[in-house]
């Protein structure tokens, strides 16, 4: 019995804003079958080469938070990073990361921050899982866009022409894979820590209170063997001083070691669950967040006819880390759609976030594609090549112990919200104040206009009350 018949539970953990080279570039050094870092990659700054580099082991808090400050994430920043200037029709030279980073106002102190990568010993959890199961070095963000467009690609197969977190309509009207699962009688849950971005999806507002649960429920569902068919896990985006909780989304400049803790918690829960033998766990990131990657994104099939200032979403975004965990995955797998390397224009196409939609549609017989993008996306079932679920991997993974200090917590809490935090607080402010009745009329989308609170602490405190009110929690 292969994966197609054996997999009953798909779990996706999507973290924030790190490139493939940043997290896994040195996973298999000098391996010709792996598209990692050679060490010679560089960008220019003031005509001087700025090579890729790693901090010394072990990581301290400062090194684990590189790059600090956060690189540019907006659509113009993405174009500048890839093209070192305006977007052109040709293949991007991937040469503008440092220039774009230093173009920020005020300019950061260290130009090499965006060229930084973590060695496998410094991020042992994701590295161990990548080596024990499968790593995909051909997984790109769905578009060279910010977080929200890419997260909507994983839920709906499109961003309806939006390229940045701001100005999104609330609720977001594109049909989602969650609604497709509900319509086909399949179970799903979004497990979240504070403010789930997926709550913006319009077609699940009437049933959100039945499906959105705190992350602690994921741990108990896994332990009890009651995981739904599809679990989407959102990390913690805000600092919570009341509980001494710090973001574990790895969004720069958040400390990656807390994300390692989250990955470990998710894997350990799944691995020890009665559902383990029937589970596929995907650990990935929404977009590269301005961190360097050397692989040029290929051209893409536009998901629909929406455009942004002439950009037709006919290009993938930068590569992001993607680790595929399943007992059906042979250990040490390098998951590649094209063994010899991707062409600049497909087919075949790389893996992207719509590969998750494609995989779910096939596994659970969910019907036709949501958009043209997931129609052509490769699915994850072919790499799960073991006939029986034999690869149990490590019984557990242990992250490096890391407890946030009070100064670190206070610094994060009193900082200005980043783009993601600001957009989430706007979304929360415009949510209905109570769960909607099953027969309520869905509100028409309106722009996000709520003011963004001046600190992370204020944004968080207000947002979680509003989210809990809407979900009846």
């Amino acid at each position, binding site marked *: 019995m292969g994966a197609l018949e054996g997999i009953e539970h798909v779990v996706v953990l999507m973290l924030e804003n790190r490139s493939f080279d940043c997290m896994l570039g040195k996973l298999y050094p000098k391996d010709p079958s792996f598209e990692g870092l050679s060490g010679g990659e560089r960008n220019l700054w003031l005509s001087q080469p700025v090579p890729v580099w790693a901090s010394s082991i072990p990581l301290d808090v400062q090194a684990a938070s590189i790059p600090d400050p956060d690189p540019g994430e907006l659509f113009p920043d993405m174009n500048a990073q890839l093209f070192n200037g305006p977007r052109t029709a040709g293949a991007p030279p991937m040469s503008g990361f440092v220039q774009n980073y230093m173009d920020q106002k005020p300019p950061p102190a260290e130009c090499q921050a965006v060229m930084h990568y973590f060695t496998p010993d410094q991020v042992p959890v994701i590295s161990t899982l990548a080596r024990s199961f499968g790593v995909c070095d051909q997984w790109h963000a769905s578009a060279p866009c910010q977080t929200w467009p890419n997260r909507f690609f994983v839920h709906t197969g499109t961003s309806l022409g939006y390229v940045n977190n701001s100005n999104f309509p609330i609720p977001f009207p594109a049909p989602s894979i969650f609604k497709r699962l509900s319509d086909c009688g399949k179970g799903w849950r979004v497990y979240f820590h504070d403010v789930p971005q997926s709550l913006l999806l319009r077609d699940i507002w009437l049933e959100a209170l039945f499906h959105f649960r705190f992350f602690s429920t994921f741990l108990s569902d896994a332990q009890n063997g009651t995981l739904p068919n599809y679990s989407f896990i959102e990390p913690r985006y805000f600092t*919570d*001083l*009341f509980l001494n909780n710090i973001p574990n989304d790895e969004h720069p400049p958040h400390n990656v070691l807390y994300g390692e803790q989250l990955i470990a918690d998710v894997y350990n829960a799944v691995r020890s669950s009665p559902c383990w033998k029937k589970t596929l766990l995907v650990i990935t990131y929404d977009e590269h967040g301005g961190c360097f990657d050397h692989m040029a994104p290929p051209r893409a099939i536009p998901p629909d006819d929406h455009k942004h200032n002439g950009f037709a979403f006919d290009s993938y975004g930068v590569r992001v880390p993607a680790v595929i965990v399943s007992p059906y995955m042979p250990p040490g797998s390098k998951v590649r759609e094209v063994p010899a390397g991707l062409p600049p224009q497909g087919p075949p196409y790389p893996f992207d976030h719509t590969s998750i939609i494609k995989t779910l549609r096939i596994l659970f017989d969910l019907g036709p594609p949501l958009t043209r993008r997931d129609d052509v996306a490769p699915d994850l079932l072919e790499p799960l090549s073991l006939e029986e679920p034999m690869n149990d991997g490590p019984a557990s993974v242990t992250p490096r112990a890391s407890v946030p200090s009070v100064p670190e917590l206070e610094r994060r*809490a009193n900082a200005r919200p980043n783009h993601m935090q600001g957009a989430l607080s706007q979304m929360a402010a415009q949510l209905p104040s109570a769960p909607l009745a099953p027969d309520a009329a869905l509100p028409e989308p309106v722009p996000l206009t709520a003011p963004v609170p001046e600190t992370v*602490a*204020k944004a968080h*405190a207000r947002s979680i009350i509003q989210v809990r009110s809407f979900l009846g929690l």
Partner: protein
Amino acid sequence: MPVTVSLGTKAIQGTVVPSVFGDGTNDKFGLVVIPTTRVFIAGVFVIVVITTFWVGARHSNWFRDNLLPQLAPAQQTYSLGRWQMAFWFTLIFTSFVALGVVLWAVPTISAQALALMGISAATGGGAIWVDDKKDSPADKANRGLQALGLSTYADVTRVTREIAERQAQLQTNPPPNPSVVQQLGLGIQDRQLLLRAYEDNIKPFVSDGWLKDLTTDLNGGTLHRWQAFIWTWVLGAVFLIGVYINLAMPQFDMSLLALMGISSAGYVGFKYPEQQQ
């Protein structure tokens, strides 16, 4: 006016009752008659002191922690360490003064009474020291509320007042123009959310009443608090009985003092890891 008093022992037939006073040639003993007035004065004094402490306990922060400066004074929890200190101080002080009034002489404060006061003071001080040292849930709540602009209870009352002011502006005649109404509405909503965040996060630290505050932490009843509470009452009763029977400061057995010391040390020691309400 002279009165006749007789004093005897219970006779056992056929036995000789020895004299307990003097050498048998000039047997005398003193009998002190305590004027009712002095007993009354002593009683009134004890009642006044206890009432003063009782009223002080209910209407001041004498016996309350100050875990969260954002709480109203009446919401602060009662402190077991401070209560113990006050308990022994009240007991020893009232006994000392009452004995002095009744006997019309300065009573001797026994070494054991001094030791009791010392143990209770050390317990109270130790409790405060532990609270100051550890990063408790109250410290987290304090930091969280400060990050929201709520550093003291005055900030909370200010926000409440600002909501009322804006609501009043909405009721003016003629009503404000739509953009002002929208601004006022946003301002009210923002402050209401702030107060909800405040209410949600102070709940674990608001007083549940004297007994619960003294005997529980965030996780409910705790053995180290209950044993300190119970032994304090037991030893206090032993002390009082001793004062009443002997009309003097009691001479505690050393083992009783050691019991008090161990009980208090247990409370302070277990206080460090507790999740304090």
